[in-house]
């Protein structure tokens, strides 16, 4: 068994400087112990604080004398010691989450005492399960423990694209509360606004829009702003406080925007004395400490039920595959977090599990036994892919579809190859199709998106970096978002597209999106299995796409 883990030997001045990737063999099971395989583990801002030695709880587990970070995640039970079976708590196949802080989830396998694991419903989506402890729980407790809130009250929160804030919005809805979500200024604000509103935010406003509105502006509109949730501190936190109504509560639960504590937040006499606003801090460990382990477990179980019933939506997260290179991604992520410039993304240690499985619901059609036309279509590409084998079940549609598909990468398109890739990868991301992403990521790499950072940004939909992405890329990304989110591209965006891309490319974006969204829906529905690695894939792709690569290079040189 090849197990691996991230671990750090000492607290660093940057989160990743002492973080190492280790291979190890899980120890044999002792009395009451369980072997788990991690499915997904998030990189939370709290984890970054642990690496910097600024979180109150230290990791409890070590490997090669180094501490294993990661306090949240979801795993499947692989095997259990016979003693565990007799007391009936856990059995192989159960979906589990940690019951304590400090369990150390940034690893593929762990041997843990059974009481550190809580079984949750197997129906809970892994992306919610992975953040139950550090994302969902704080969101719930912020509304439950910190202030008395009544239906119709309003909450104002910053870092609103962060995972905790996303769940705050959802719990607020359950409790009849309204939310004002403050996000930092950004280019793709309309896209984010639409997305957060679709997840239940009543008002989405940027930092500068908020500041322009002036103090107590929402209160003047008759809203009772009874709770401010500040994850940023500094100016952003102070701006939230100015909007609070009398008797409201300001809660800080993070200082991402002011990690050195240099700015602080400003409290006026008016806020403290006239309005009697209370200012205090939220500590997850403290709130959990007021509950028994049984109460905590019941709470988590209930969150799982809410997720299964659809009351909690899958958070807006970005997922990456577990490998040695996640250290670089964690570094990028933590830089964003520490700069206070991004709270949106979380890296999961896997986009579900990339393990090659055998759980497809329709047969894979084999070229050798298929009718000649189907067999020819299956050989369109110089390598085998499970997706084509599935599509081939529709014998009549499949051959002409493959021809249509091949037009998507035809070098004669108006759309440039990199633009075609943005269309495909954004479609895969928004429709949650890791398989589609995996198939196309190598293509994107040979077509110019050649670093993890660029791909990371495409994955999370942040194309604001002008060195990596063109205005056309950004516009295409917006079109895809609107198509997935609203089923229609807005008229304004369409007019912009016709202007910037031209008639042909505008239509090409929508057709390619149509083709790849169909593929994404098919592969997810049929429960496609990941392809085994294809030897020499990159060379094959370079050869196959030689013309496109050349054209893209020329076009890039002209930019």
């Amino acid at each position: 068994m090849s197990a691996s883990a991230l671990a750090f030997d000492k607290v660093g001045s940057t989160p990743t400087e002492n973080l190492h990737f280790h291979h190890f063999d899980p120890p044999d099971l002792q009395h009451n112990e369980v072997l788990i395989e991690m499915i997904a583990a998030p990189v939370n801002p709290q984890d970054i604080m642990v690496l910097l030695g600024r979180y109150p709880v230290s990791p409890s587990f070590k490997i090669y004398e180094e501490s294993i970070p990661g306090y949240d995640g979801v795993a499947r039970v692989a095997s259990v010691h016979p003693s565990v079976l007799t007391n009936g708590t856990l059995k192989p196949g159960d979906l589990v989450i940690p019951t304590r802080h400090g369990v150390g989830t940034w690893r593929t396998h762990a041997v843990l005492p059974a009481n550190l694991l809580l079984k949750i419903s197997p129906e809970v989506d892994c992306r919610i399960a992975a953040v139950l402890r550090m994302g969902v729980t704080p969101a719930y407790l912020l509304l439950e423990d910190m202030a008395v809130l009544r239906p119709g009250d309003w909450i104002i929160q910053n870092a609103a694209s962060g995972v905790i804030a996303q769940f705050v919005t959802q719990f607020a809805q359950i409790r009849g509360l309204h939310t004002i979500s403050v996000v930092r200024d950004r280019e793709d604000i309309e896209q984010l606004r639409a997305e957060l509103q679709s997840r239940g935010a009543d008002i989405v406003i940027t930092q500068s829009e908020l500041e322009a509105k002036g103090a107590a502006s929402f209160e003047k509109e008759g809203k009772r702003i009874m709770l401010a949730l500040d994850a940023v501190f500094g100016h952003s936190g102070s701006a939230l406080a100015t909007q609070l109504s009398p008797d409201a509560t300001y809660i800080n639960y993070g200082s991402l925007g002011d990690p050195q504590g240099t700015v602080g937040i400003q409290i006026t006499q008016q806020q403290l004395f006239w309005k009697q606003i209370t200012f205090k801090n939220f500590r997850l460990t403290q709130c959990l400490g007021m509950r028994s382990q049984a109460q905590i477990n019941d709470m988590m179980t209930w969150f799982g039920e809410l997720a299964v019933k659809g009351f909690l939506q899958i958070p807006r997260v970005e997922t990456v595959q577990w490998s040695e290179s996640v250290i670089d991604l964690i570094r990028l992520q933590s830089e964003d977090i520490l700069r206070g410039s991004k709270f949106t993304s979380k890296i999961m240690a896997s986009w579900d599990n990339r393990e090659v499985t055998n759980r497809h619901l329709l047969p894979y059609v084999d070229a050798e036994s298929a009718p000649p036309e189907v067999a020819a279509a299956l050989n369109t590409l110089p390598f085998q892919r499970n997706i084509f084998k599935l599509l081939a079940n529709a014998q009549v549609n499949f051959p002409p579809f493959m021809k249509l598909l091949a037009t998507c990468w035809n070098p004669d398109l108006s759309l440039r190859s990199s633009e075609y890739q943005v269309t495909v990868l954004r479609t895969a991301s928004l429709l949650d199709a890791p398989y589609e992403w995996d198939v196309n990521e190598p293509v994107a790499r040979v077509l110019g998106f050649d670093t993890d950072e660029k791909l990371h940004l495409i994955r999370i939909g942040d194309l604001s970096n002008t060195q990596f992405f063109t205005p056309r890329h950004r516009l295409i990304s917006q079109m895809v978002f609107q198509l997935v989110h609203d089923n229609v591209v807005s008229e304004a965006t369409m007019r912009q597209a016709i202007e910037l891309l031209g008639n042909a490319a505008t239509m090409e974006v929508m057709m390619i999106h149509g083709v790849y969204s169909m593929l994404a829906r098919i592969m997810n529905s049929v429960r496609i299995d990941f392809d085994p690695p294809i030897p020499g894939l990159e060379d094959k792709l370079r050869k196959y796409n030689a013309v496109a690569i050349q054209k893209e290079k020329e076009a890039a040189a002209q930019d």
Partner: protein
Amino acid sequence: MPQLPTLRASNRSIAALPRALAPRHGPLTCRRFKSGPYGYTQAKALVYSKYGEPADVLSLHTHSISPSLPSNSLLLRALATPINPADINQIQGVYPAKPPFTSLLGTSEPSAVGGNEGCFEVASVGASVKSVSKGDWIIMKHTGFGTWRTHTLAEESDVLKVNKEGLTPIQVGTVSVNPCTAYRMLKDFEDIREGQWFIQNGANSGVGRAAIQLGKQWGLKSINIIRDRPDPAATEAMKKELLELGATKVVTESELMDKGFADQVKEWTNGGREKVKIGLNCVGGKPTSALVKCLSPSGHLVTYGGMSKQPLQLPTAALIFKDLKFSGFWVSRWSDANPDEKRRMVYEILEMTRLGMFKDVPVQQLTWDWSTEESVLKDAVQGTLGGFRAGKGVFVYGDT
């Protein structure tokens, strides 16, 4: 020149009139104003019709009160009513509680009467009044009544009867704002126990002195911050006075701002083992930030005023790593929401006063007689604002 004698005669009669009337009508004129014809009570009140500096906006208004009282009403005569800083802020329009301007007193513009607490004597009662009778002392249940007045009508439900046995009007008249504020702030925000500490600025204020004494009764230790006096001897005298009152430690603002002060606090608190759980703040700005640094983890800063009007800058460390809490308190709001607890608390503090466990706050008495001029009263109010004063201003009513 036939007119001349007439003129002279007229002159003579005018000059003669005051002399002729003086012995009989002089005092009579006053008496008539005070009790009025047909038993009307003549009352005076310091009123304001718009917000501003007290010297600019206050005026002395005279009105009369009918002898036929509504059945549930009382006629009250003021005995002692203090001038609190919050009263001034209220007149300036910079205090959260704003009394309504009304035309009830017959002022040309709708107006409010200044002052928020005081001790009154019941002069007469309406037919259905049961709980108080003539000669009783009362205080107002709620702030915002307007107490800088010689006489007033009040409803039975507005007043709280006080057992005057062993008490002075000033003791009774100053109980509901400052001591009650100190009491609530020490009781309601944190579970502070015997042997634990609180720290406060404005320690020489009415609230500060009350907190020192209540703290002493309850076994709490206190760090008390006073402003540096220009004369070091005066500073020392002030320290001595507060220590005698029950303060554990008294330091000046400049000592507080000194770099080594945190270590000093650590030494006093047995290496930090005795918690400094509550900070009482009426200042704001940098000195308050310095005070915040002395609070133990999970401590609570309670703000009840802000003389310096400076905002408070909260460092990340204070909120996040020390888990401090910050709240505001104004007693009038609390009193309105908790009438029963307020009554119980007032009686408790007055009982402590009777037993000599709660010393009088130093006062500057201002006698308010019928003949006291408007300017004298206004100066008294305005004077409350500036510099170092020997004591709280209190109107003590004489011959009204």
